[in-house]
């Protein structure tokens, strides 16, 4: 045996490791500055911070940190069910919605199977499929949008899961109700369709996919507390599906996957309408501002339905590097095969302005005026 890789599952060799946004602390160390000076617009986090109601509840919950969490997530699942108009049995909690994607791989993918995702789709789908030895069929993405017809056409007898990110990260594109309905009328019943709706709450007139859950179709809708509620650090997301689907997914998880502080925080966040409203307003304003500025700078961008915008800066990694020296962290998209683009998460208005000012400086260096 030369190396452990000789006996490890072959698909793991090719698996690229997920690269998170560049850490603030690391950047501060490299630039030799105070971390507080750094503006991180790289991970689609909530610019307003966590829901204050969630924080208040979590503070109280710290008193019981030594007790195991409720492994069944009873109260949070019930609260979500009543909010969404479904039943507790329709919901599974994950250690972030990412973990629910892992449950799906565990439950449905094995070597030889196929998963279908769009080109430039959120990278987790591909990674999970590879982990379970399945092949990902990537369908072309004209105008950076998911092409649901192409995705349907890609379905072979080996296909098990179709991943649809709506809106997609990093492109920010949204698929309309009409297209979803047409897709649902054609997709075979033995294929599981995942609607990843991590940014659902930022959409103005969100398409309804829960009706397909109520109709007991093989769909799983993913949502998260990481974005609109600002709880990315506490790790809690969920999947919504018909009860048998949930029962299948439940089998794949460990008994205490969602920590008690996150459960309590999430419960309180559901009640915090003001924080939700303000977050959406801040993101809407920031999006308008950034998109106007990009237009002014003659930079191509994709109108976004999320709390981030993808913008064509010519040489993504170079601009990322130059913004970094100006204490701004954005996300280069080379890993998404979008080397000309960067993704900028929408921040507070002050952060957005600083980001644009830095971008202007950086671009004027490159462009003869």
């Amino acid at each position: 045996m030369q190396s452990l890789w000789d006996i490890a599952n072959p698909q793991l060799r090719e698996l690229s490791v997920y690269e998170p946004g560049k850490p603030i602390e690391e950047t501060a160390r490299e630039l030799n500055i105070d971390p507080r000076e750094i503006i991180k617009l790289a991970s689609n986090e909530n610019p307003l911070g966590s829901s204050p109601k969630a924080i208040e509840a979590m503070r109280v919950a710290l008193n019981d940190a030594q007790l195991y969490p409720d492994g069944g997530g009873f109260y949070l699942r019930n609260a979500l069910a009543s909010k969404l108009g479904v039943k507790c049995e329709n919901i599974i909690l994950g250690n972030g919605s990412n973990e629910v994607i892992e449950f799906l791989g565990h439950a449905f993918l094995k070597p030889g199977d196929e998963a279908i995702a769009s080109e430039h789709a959120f990278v987790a789908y591909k990674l999970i499929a590879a982990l379970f030895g399945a092949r990902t069929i990537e369908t072309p993405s004209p105008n950076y949008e998911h092409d649901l017809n192409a995705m349907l056409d890609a379905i072979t007898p080996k296909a098990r899961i179709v991943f649809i990110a709506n809106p997609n990260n990093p492109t920010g594109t949204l698929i309309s109700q009409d297209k979803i309905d047409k897709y649902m009328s054609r997709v075979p019943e033995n294929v599981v369709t995942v609607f990843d709706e991590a940014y659902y709450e930022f959409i103005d007139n969100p398409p309804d996919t829960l009706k397909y859950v109520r109709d007991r179709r093989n769909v799983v809708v993913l949502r998260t507390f990481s974005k609109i509620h600002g709880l990315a650090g506490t790790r809690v997301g969920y999947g919504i599906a018909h009860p048998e689907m949930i029962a299948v997914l439940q089998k794949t998880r460990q008994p205490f996957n969602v920590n008690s502080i996150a459960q309590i925080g999430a419960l309180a966040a559901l009640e915090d309408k003001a924080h939700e409203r303000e977050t959406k307003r801040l993101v809407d304003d920031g999006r308008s501002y950034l998109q106007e500025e990009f237009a002014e700078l003659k930079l191509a961008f994709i109108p976004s339905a999320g709390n981030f915008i993808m913008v064509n800066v010519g040489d993504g990694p170079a601009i990322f590097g130059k913004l970094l020296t100006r204490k701004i962290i954005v996300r280069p998209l080379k890993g998404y095969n979008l080397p000309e683009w960067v993704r900028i998460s929408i921040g507070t208005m002050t952060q957005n302005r600083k980001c644009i000012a830095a971008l202007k400086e950086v671009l004027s260096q490159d462009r003869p005026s």
Partner: protein
Amino acid sequence: MNTVSISRRRFAQLLGAGAAAAVAKPAFSFAAEPIAQPATTSVVRLSSNENPYGPSSKALKAMSDAFDLSCRYPDEHVDELIQALAKLNGVNRDQILLGDGSGEILKLCAETFTGSTRGKLVAADPTFEAILNHARVNGAEVVKVPLNRSFGHDLPKMMAAAKEGLIYICNPNNPTASITPRNEVGEFIAKAPSQTMVLVDEAYYHYADSPDYESVIPLIKDHPNLIVARTFSKIYGMAGLRCGYCVAQREMIERMRPHQPWDSVNIMALAAAIASLNDPDQVANGKRLNTEAKTFVTSELDAMGYKQIPSQANFIMVDVKRPVAPLIQALKQRNVQVGRLFPALPNHMRVTIGKKTEMESFLSAFRQIAA
């Protein structure tokens, strides 16, 4: 039930009820309905081997300070904990993998090393069962080897059963609180064929004080097939927060890592774990208080004529000399929760060592029902 409008005060109650419910059922149950249990402070929870004294005050402070970061993904803070754990255990940083509780480490080991094509899982009976379920989910055969007469792992039989796949050694063992002696474990690891993975679960490491016990982490440098799991749920009092880890050679860690979704350990757990490692009193006090309460309850039980398996953990396994199931129920009616029935030892009751006052409540309830 209306769970949407709840006051802040109610949250604390909900947490209590939820947590109580979680432990009132077997570890691997996903029933939606928690077993109804009034969330009153009078319930004595001696059912889940939790630490009654809670996390270090430094950890509580660190978590309070971390609320500013709860809107951020936690990845930036992972390195600091890994660094501290590497130092603590005298290994390199790339030899540590963090988990969403050591429960996730067990899941990752089952996923990486067991399955219909990869190999079976060999575990003791009785032992901590979570990994058995994960192995079955992966389609692996599960072989249970009964503990030997001194409640240690029967290592020769386990080795014979293994060939490829994974051998799980829980030391100290849950639910028996017993240890497998260090010379036996050492010899076993030296002899285990290299294609057999050995996972030693040291969740209760800090509570073991027998001269016959020692951690096998120092053996990792010579054994690429050895993995050791540890947790912050026990001596560090952080069960609700979910943080555990394993130590192994770098290549083993690299094989396990892809099986884990990213951002697995939340920011509160990271902050609390880092702070706990900087508080030397946490371990020392936790051990001392556990020993005091354990000495108290075991001597009372001895006096009543109830023997226990010698305990090297923060719980005891009491021989109740009759089927335990009705006694568990009877205690529950008296607001004392103890461990579930373990079918391999149907006449034994597992009781977590709580605070001394809680052990007094247990003893008085036990006296009533056992009379």
